[in-house]
């Protein structure tokens, strides 16, 4: 562990903690999840980066949406994201979450995931290989260093807008708003 690392640790331990212990919720709806098991097992061993699969969103601070998002799974995505403790980072994995990918003209897939929850980074490709996950993680580190991984702040700030989008996509949204709506625009 070199010196400036040590300095960083001393000046902002919390940030370093968020960097180096990314416990991830993998959202296993799409084909993308195929890439996750190799990445967390002996071949690529994500744990050396401190990335660990976690069972409950309450433990996690990294949300990896692997694969396309249908209207039905959107609600689950939103709820899971809401339940993660802040600060939290959401990463879309593969081209489907970005723009629908090969389902671009399907009536039942969400084309712009970031209209509903804030996304801190995208991993392009269909499929991206496990190394891409690590690239994303290292990028996320730099973003966290520069305080640019601020999706959760944006979510708080513009919650009213996000909530509106969510309600538009999912008529009859049956859970109370996470934050007071009037405070945010």
């Amino acid at each position, binding site marked *: 562990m070199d010196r400036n690392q040590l300095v960083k640790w001393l000046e902002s331990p919390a940030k*370093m903690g968020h960097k180096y212990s990314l416990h991830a919720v993998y959202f296993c709806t799409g084909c993308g999840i195929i890439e996750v098991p190799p990445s967390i097992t002996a071949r690529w061993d994500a744990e050396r980066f401190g990335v660990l699969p976690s*069972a*409950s969103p*309450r433990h996690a601070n990294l949300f990896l949406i692997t694969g396309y998002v249908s209207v039905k799974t959107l609600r689950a995505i939103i709820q899971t994201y809401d339940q*993660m*403790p802040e600060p939290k980072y959401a990463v879309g994995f593969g081209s489907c979450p970005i723009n629908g990918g090969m389902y671009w003209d399907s009536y039942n897939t969400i084309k712009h995931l970031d209209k509903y929850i804030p996304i801190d980074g995208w991993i392009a490709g269909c499929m991206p290989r496990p190394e891409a996950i690590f690239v994303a993680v290292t990028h996320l580190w730099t973003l966290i260093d520069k305080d640019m991984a601020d999706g959760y702040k944006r979510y708080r700030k513009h919650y009213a807008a996000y909530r509106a989008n969510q309600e538009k996509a999912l008529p009859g949204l049956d859970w109370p708003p996470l934050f007071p709506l009037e405070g945010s625009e």
Partner: protein
Amino acid sequence: MTKMIWYVLSPLIALVVGILLMGLSRKLLARIHWRVGPPILQPVIDLIRFLSQKSASHGFLFDSGLILSLAGSLVLTLFLPLGQYTPMSGSGGLLVILYVMLLGPLGIAFSSGGAANPYASIGISRKLMLAMGYELPLLLIVLTVMTGYRTISIVEVVRIQQAQGWAIATFPLLLSALAYILILPAILGMRPFEVVGAAQEISSGPVVEFGGPHLALSTLQHALTTYIGLSLFVNLMLGGGSNPVFFLLKMLVVFVLCLCVHAVFPRFRVDQAIRYLWRWPALVAMAGLVLTVLMGG
């Protein structure tokens, strides 16, 4: 004066050792799995992250249960001889230890009951059933030790062992030691007895609703539980230690042995676990007790 110091020192040592053991276990596990694995200090990093996060609280019971359990485990470390130092030697001995050992699980149970999450409830019910499973032989073992050495004070037990040789080396107690080794993974919550925090079925059971500081507390509590389980074994069976260093070394050895089992075994269902625990370890422990009674007279 030194006694006063140890009132503070032994809980701290317990915490540090527990956390280091956790880190070690992750590293060692990774090596056994032919991986690089995280740095040894990974649990510390995790803890820092948890503590710096916001968490969702399910109400008073949810918080207080955790606090109670951690406090109970901290207090318990005061009763366990660390080398030759035992801050609270004169307060009820092994029986109190057996009972204070309850506070940890009970506290967790209360707080995850307050979480109102069925996964947590299932985890707790498994935890209690498993405890029922290993307490039966454990109680037999502890009773054997107390009967064999004619005392209920663990300090006495350690002293006698220092004088007359370890319990594991003397005959009737050997059986109890054997039984203890058989149930030790269950006490430490390691595989093949990892039913409680089964991440895959019940999304890590009792701690499912803990996030941020709550998760940190429960992690610390888990670390302490590991420390306590090992230290009880070392004190009862391996003659404690003439000084803390030896004591911790013995602990380390035992822990590594358990890790090897942990690394290669799959998991029992809870009823299989109870069946196992109530069969062989219990029988061996019972035999130990009977022999002790017969020979000790």
